[in-house]
């Protein structure tokens, strides 16, 4: 790449930079026509909400270097606020069309981020993490105490269909709400992307990398973090508003540590170092959560293993794995990778499937009601007393992992060859 093309590319949103956005917009419009049934629309909505939440979380983790264990607070608070608004609207006290509600959720989330951030962002690192954990627990606990706002243990619910009928849509089905959620998702993602390119956004990276150096360039690190924190609180609140609209019920679980921890997992799985990482993470995780949970009770085990494997082997997440392949692609040596990848990944996947089968059969044998010995795995019905499925899955584990580990070195070599420019070329 010559210097001229580099500088031109960074001057404006060039074709290369806007292509992903155009692709995303097209995808948002096409998907509802590809997946028309109700459950698929529900999953799409869930993915979109998780994307907003994960991107908002990554303004802290990836962009600002702040490890938060309490980000659910701002999503939850935004959601509760929107739910109360929906109830006011239902009682004809207020007149606000549904698609505008997430904005108010965002403002409410931001107000609390402004409050809690004022003392928690003074230091990054462990101090920030511990304070975020404390605030998370505090708010989750008060949700059970302050019944008027949080509804106690039952939480609060609402009805999105009772509002003013401005657009001629009554928001009955997930397919109708999809347009509100997807619209806010695109808008939020784009705004968060733009934020990352402003002075405040760039200095957030600088403070993440080296807070001291930033000080000697005139920037107060705490102030830089505070701005990111408030902005993240806003978009978390938007996500909460979308959640309220989509599910029409909220409770303590929308504020607690489990939700805060899950979004950390999502952002990390996708790749916190990349802007689009959390988007990938949100898609993969939501699919695991929804589709996989339909097929197995043990989906959380698999999600946990995936997370641990990501941290251990791909610390830059799925997005990092994708970014690793830009160099081979640009060098035109992607072809070198195909055969080694097939030789490693196919047996590896077979090994993983074998292991999963083994665990599933074991789980069924141990936990199925007495007398129910028949189970279905990969569309095959069998009894868990039958030794053949046990043997096949054990064989797949041993054989698959053996073959994969045998060719792993070759795959690594191939990757190195494909990602470096040889001299003389």
């Amino acid at each position: 790449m010559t210097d001229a093309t580099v500088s031109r590319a960074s001057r404006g949103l060039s074709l290369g930079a806007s292509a992903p956005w155009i692709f995303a917009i097209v995808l948002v419009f096409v998907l509802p026509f590809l997946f028309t049934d109700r459950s698929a629309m529900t999953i799409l909505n869930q993915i979109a909400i998780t994307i907003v939440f994960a991107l908002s979380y990554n303004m802290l983790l990836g962009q600002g270097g702040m490890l938060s264990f309490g980000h659910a607070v701002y999503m939850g608070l935004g959601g509760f606020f929107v739910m109360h608004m929906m109830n006011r609207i239902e009682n004809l006290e207020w007149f606000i069309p549904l698609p505008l509600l997430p904005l108010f959720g965002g403002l409410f989330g931001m107000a609390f981020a402004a409050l809690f951030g004022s003392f928690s962002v003074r230091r990054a690192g462990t101090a920030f993490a511990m304070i975020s954990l404390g605030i998370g627990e505090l708010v989750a606990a008060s949700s059970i105490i302050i019944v008027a706002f949080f509804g106690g243990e039952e939480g609060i619910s609402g009805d999105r269909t009772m509002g003013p009928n401005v657009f001629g849509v009554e928001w009955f089905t997930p397919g109708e709400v999809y347009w509100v959620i997807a619209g806010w998702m695109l808008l939020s993602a784009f705004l968060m992307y733009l934020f990352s390119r402003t002075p405040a956004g760039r200095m957030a990276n600088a403070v993440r990398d080296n807070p001291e150096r930033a000080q000697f360039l005139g920037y107060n690190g705490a102030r830089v973090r505070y701005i990111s924190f408030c902005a993240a609180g806003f978009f978390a609140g938007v996500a909460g508003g979308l959640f309220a609209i989509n599910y029409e019920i909220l409770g303590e679980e929308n504020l607690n540590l489990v939700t805060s921890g899950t979004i950390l997992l999502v952002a990390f799985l996708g790749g916190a170092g990349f802007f689009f990482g959390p988007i990938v993470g949100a898609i993969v995780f939501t699919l695991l959560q929804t589709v996989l949970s339909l097929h197995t009770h043990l989906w959380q085990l698999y999600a946990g293993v995936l997370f641990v494997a990501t941290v251990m082997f791909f610390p830059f997440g799925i997005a990092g794995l994708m970014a690793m392949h830009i160099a081979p692609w640009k060098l035109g040596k992607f072809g070198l990778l195909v055969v080694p990848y097939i030789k490693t990944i196919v047996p590896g996947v077979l090994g993983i499937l074998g292991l999963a089968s083994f665990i599933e059969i074991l789980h069924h044998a141990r936990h199925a009601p007495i007398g129910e010995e028949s189970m279905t795995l990969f569309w095959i019905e069998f009894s868990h007393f039958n030794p053949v499925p046990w043997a096949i899955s054990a064989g797949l584990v041993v054989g698959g992992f053996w073959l994969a580990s045998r060719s792993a070195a070759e795959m690594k070599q191939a990757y190195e060859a494909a990602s470096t420019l040889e001299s003389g070329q």
Partner: protein
Amino acid sequence: MSAALELRSLRKSFGKTEIIRGVDLGIGKGERHAIIGPNGAGKSTLFNLITGRYPVTSGEVHMHGENVTGMAPYQINRKGLSRSFQITNIFPRMTVFENIRCALLWPRGYRYSFWQLLHRETDLNDAADRILDQLNLTARRDLPAGVLSYAEQRALEIGITIGGGADVILLDEPTAGMSNTETDYIVNLIREVTVGKTLIMVEHDMGVVFDLADKISVLVYGEIIASGVPEDVRGDTKVQEAYLGAALEAEH
């Protein structure tokens, strides 16, 4: 005319140990002033006191006649003082270009703006590119700063320090750990980019010191034992006893 930088009976103790023991020093506008002294004399500590990195125990730091003692580093920086570090102190995960651009943001009035898009700010980006050109780092523009060679990182460090156009510049051992060729490159760079500015540097390489400095102060055990033009300092018997003689012998 008030001095660009004035230290008045500056003291710093860590616990019971007094590291800086009453330093009085005036540095005129446009002067290139080198601070030399044996290891552990407190040169870096002095820098850290001037720039607000450490709180002073007693005494005052004045810049352009204004008392800046006790201000935070970012406040002192906003008044036109910029420093480099002995240990390379850059933003390793950001690109070389963005490292420089970060240094330009505050002085150019961008402050904490979240409504301006940096890639549209042509003047800013051109200025950053000009500095990269001056540093000879244009070819490295879009690499993460953390992957540069040591000398390149040192050059970048100086670029970040001078980029904002501060008029008082403190360089802490800019040539530490460099080969001769690299040292020449950095010395030329410093000479070029500090024209018309007040420069204060800590440096061990006597060649660099006598090459660049208009005035030299010798710091030994937290006190300045001599201060003046290079010829006088070189001839000072106290200095020769304490430090310079040994250092000059070691050079040859």
